[in-house]
C-alpha cells in the first residue's frame, strides 16, 4: 500500500515537474519586446523653408523612394549678406550630382575678386620661389643679390634667361593683351577675370615668351610647393591622381572656374569625385598665390595641368 502511495506520489511529482518545465519553457521562449520597426521615409525638403513660412500646410505623403532635390526654393532671405556666388553657379543652389566619371567636370570657383593691378611691392618674404630661383639663376648671374630677391629683379632675371636665341629682342607682333584675348577666343575658353591694364613692368614679358626649362621647372616647383601646403586628403586616398586646369589672375587669385580634367586610381566615380574635391579645395584655400613673378604672368596664368598625385602624401 505504501509502495502504491509512493508510486502515486512520485508520479504526481513528475507530472508537476513536467508542468513546471513546460511553463518555464513557454516563459523562456516568450519573445522580448520587439524593437520598434521604425521606418525612415525620404522626403523632399526643397520647399522646407517655404513650407515653414507658409504655416506648414498638411504634409505630403511620404515618398517611397529617395527624392532628388533640385534647387531648394528658398523663400526666406538669409539675414546675413549672402556670399558672392561663383561664376558657374553654386551658393545655395543645389548642384546637379554627376555620377559619371570625372572628365572635364567644371566645378565652381569661389568668388573671384580681380584686383585691377598687381600688388605694387610684394612684401619681400622668404618665399620658396625666390629662393629656388636664386639658386637656379645663380650660375648664370653671380650678380644676383645674395639675400632675398625682389620679385621685380627676379622678373628681370627671368627675362634674361628667356628664349634660346638672344640675338635681338623679339618684337611682339601684337599687343600682349590683344594676343591673350585672341588666345582666349581661339581656345574657346571662358574669359578670364577682367584683366588689369598692364603697367610698364607687366609688359616686359611677351605673352608667348618661354622660360628656359630650368626656370620653368623652378617656377613649377614653387607653385607646387605653395599648393601642397594647402592640400589635405582623406586617409586611404593615396592611390589617386587628379589633373586640374587652373587660370590665375595677375595677383595670383583665381581667374575662373577650376576644371577637373581627369582623375585616376579611385575605386569608383564617387571616390574620384571626392578626391578631386580635395584638390580643388587646396587650390581655393591657397589662392591668391603670392609672389609669383609678374613679368612672367603669361607663363603662369594657366596651370595646365595642375597635377596632384597622392601617392607620397602622408
Amino acid at each position, binding site marked *: 500500500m505504501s509502495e502504491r502511495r509512493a508510486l502515486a506520489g512520485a508520479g504526481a511529482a513528475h507530472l508537476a515537474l513536467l508542468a513546471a518545465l513546460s511553463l518555464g519553457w513557454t516563459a*523562456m*521562449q516568450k519573445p522580448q519586446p*520587439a*524593437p520598434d520597426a*521604425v521606418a*525612415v521615409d*525620404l522626403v523632399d*525638403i526643397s520647399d*522646407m523653408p517655404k513650407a*515653414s*513660412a507658409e504655416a*506648414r500646410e*498638411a*504634409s505630403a505623403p*511620404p515618398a517611397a523612394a529617395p*527624392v532628388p*532635390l533640385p534647387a531648394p526654393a528658398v523663400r*526666406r*532671405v*538669409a539675414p546675413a549678406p*549672402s556670399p558672392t*556666388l*561663383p561664376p558657374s553657379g553654386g*551658393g*545655395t543652389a*543645389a*548642384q546637379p550630382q554627376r555620377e559619371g566619371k570625372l572628365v572635364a567636370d567644371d*566645378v565652381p*570657383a569661389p*568668388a573671384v575678386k580681380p584686383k585691377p593691378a598687381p600688388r605694387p611691392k610684394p612684401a619681400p618674404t622668404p618665399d620658396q620661389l625666390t629662393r629656388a630661383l636664386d639658386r637656379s639663376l645663380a650660375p648664370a648671374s653671380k650678380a644676383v643679390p645674395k639675400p632675398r630677391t625682389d620679385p621685380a629683379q627676379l622678373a628681370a632675371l627671368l627675362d634674361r634667361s628667356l628664349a634660346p636665341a638672344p640675338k635681338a629682342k623679339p618684337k611682339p607682333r601684337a599687343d600682349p593683351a590683344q*594676343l591673350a584675348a585672341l*588666345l582666349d577666343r581661339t581656345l574657346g575658353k571662358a574669359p578670364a577675370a577682367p584683366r588689369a591694364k598692364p603697367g610698364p613692368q607687366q609688359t616686359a614679358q611677351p*605673352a*608667348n*615668351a618661354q622660360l628656359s626649362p630650368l626656370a620653368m621647372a623652378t617656377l613649377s616647383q614653387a607653385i*607646387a610647393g605653395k599648393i*601642397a601646403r594647402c*592640400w*589635405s*586628403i*582623406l*586617409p586611404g586616398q593615396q592611390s589617386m591622381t587628379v589633373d586640374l586646369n587652373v587660370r590665375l589672375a595677375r595677383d595670383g587669385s583665381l581667374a575662373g572656374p577650376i576644371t577637373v580634367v581627369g582623375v585616376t586610381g579611385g*575605386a569608383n566615380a*564617387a*571616390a574620384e*569625385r*571626392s578626391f578631386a574635391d580635395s584638390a*580643388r*579645395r*587646396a587650390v581655393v584655400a591657397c589662392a591668391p598665390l603670392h609672389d609669383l613673378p609678374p613679368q612672367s604672368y*603669361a*607663363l603662369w*596664368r594657366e*596651370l595646365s*595641368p595642375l*597635377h*596632384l598625385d*597622392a601617392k*607620397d*602624401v602622408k
Partner: protein
Amino acid sequence: MIRPLLLALLLAAPAAAQLRVDVTQGVSQPMPVAVPGFATPAPAATAAGNTAALGQQVAAVIAADLKSSGLFRPVGQADPVPFAQTTAPAYDTWRQAAAQALVTGAVEANPDGTITLACYLYDTFAQSQLASEGFRVTPAAWRRAAHKCADKAYARLTGESGYFDSQIVYISETGPKTRRIKRLAIMDQDGANHRFLTNGQNLVLTPRFAPNQSRLAYMSFAGNRPSLWFYDATTGRHQIVGTFQGTSLSPRFSPDGRYLLMSLIRAGNANIYRLDIAAKALDRLTDGPSIDTSPSYSPDGSKIVFESDRGGTQQLYIMNADGSGAHRLTFGQGRYATPAWSPRGDLIAFTRIGGGKLRVGTMRPDGGGEKLLTDSFADEQPSWSPNGRVLVFFRTPSGSATPHLMSADLTGLNLRTIPTPLGASDPSWGPLRP
C-alpha cells in the same frame, strides 16, 4: 604671309602660356567638418522633446558618427544656426573656423506627429551645396534620421557608402566564468538603443545577421540541445529552425539570404553544411577527418572562405560555393581563424593566433597583402561594417574574463570601444538599414 605667321603664333602660344605643375606633397588627415546644431523653423513639442532641443541632439549624433569614422574632425560652433542659414550658409564664417565642409539642417514637427529632418551638406570652399535629403520619422526614431544624414555626408565626402544607420548584434556576458549568463543583445552601431533579445536562461552563441537585416540566426542550447534559431527584428519573434544531428556551430547567411552555412560536429569531425532555408534541405560541402568550420560567403556568393586543420594546423581555405576546388589561403606564421569576407569583396578579415596573442587582420582573397590591425592580448571574431571599411570585434584584456566590443578601420589606427552595458563578445554587424 602675315596671316599664316599669326596663326602659327596663336597655335604656338598655348604651349607657352600653360605651365605644368606637379604636386606630390600634402597631408593625409581627417577633414575638418562643421556640424552646428540643427535649426527649427518653429520650436514645437514632439514625443521626443522640443524640436529645438532635438536639433542640438541630432547635430551631436552626426558629429559623433563622422568623428568615429576617423576620417572627419568636427570643428566650429555647436550652437544652432538660424533657420534661414540652413539653405544659405555663411560660408566665410565656416571657412574661418577651418571647416572644409558643413553639415547643417533643420528639425520640423509635422501635423501627423512625425518629424522631418532636413539635411544639407555644403562645400565651404567651393561655396556650393553637395547633397541634401529629407528624412521623415516618428519622433522616437530621430537618431535613425540623424544617422541617415551622417551617412549622406560620409558618402558624398568619401565616395564610399555610409554605415552609421546600422545595428550590431552580439552576446552579452555577465557573471562568474563558471556560471556565465549569456544573452543575445542588439544595438545601434554607436551603442545606442540597446536591448536584450533573450533572457539569459539558455546559452546562446554566434548570432549572425541576414543580408536583408530583418532576420538574424543564432545558436541556442535550450533544453541542452544545440539548435539553430532565427530572430525576426520586425516582429520580435524567435523561431527554431531545426535541431541537427550533432553540434551545430557558426551559422552564416548567403548574400541572397537563401542559404545558411554552418558546421556540424558529427563523430568527432566538423564539416561545413549548407542549409536551403525554404526547402529545409541540408547539403554537406566538406567531408574529411579534419575540423572545418567558420564558413563565410564571398559577396557574390560564388566562393566560401573557412577555417580548417586539414593541413595539420588551423588555416584559412577558400572553396567554390558547391564545396569543390578548396585551396589553402594562409601560409603565414601562427594559426588563422574566424574568417569574414568583406561585403566589398576586396578583403578577408580573420583572427591570427600566434606569439601568445590573438590579433585581427585582413588580407586579399588571393592571400596577399596581409595586414594585422590590432596588437593586443586577445582580439577576435571580426565582422564587417556594411560598407567594408570598418571591423567590429571583441577584445579580452590580459588577466580579465570580461570581453568588450571594439571597432577598427582598415588602417588599424582608429581603434574605438563600442559601449555596452555588460561584457560583450561575438559581434555581428548588420547591413545598412533601409
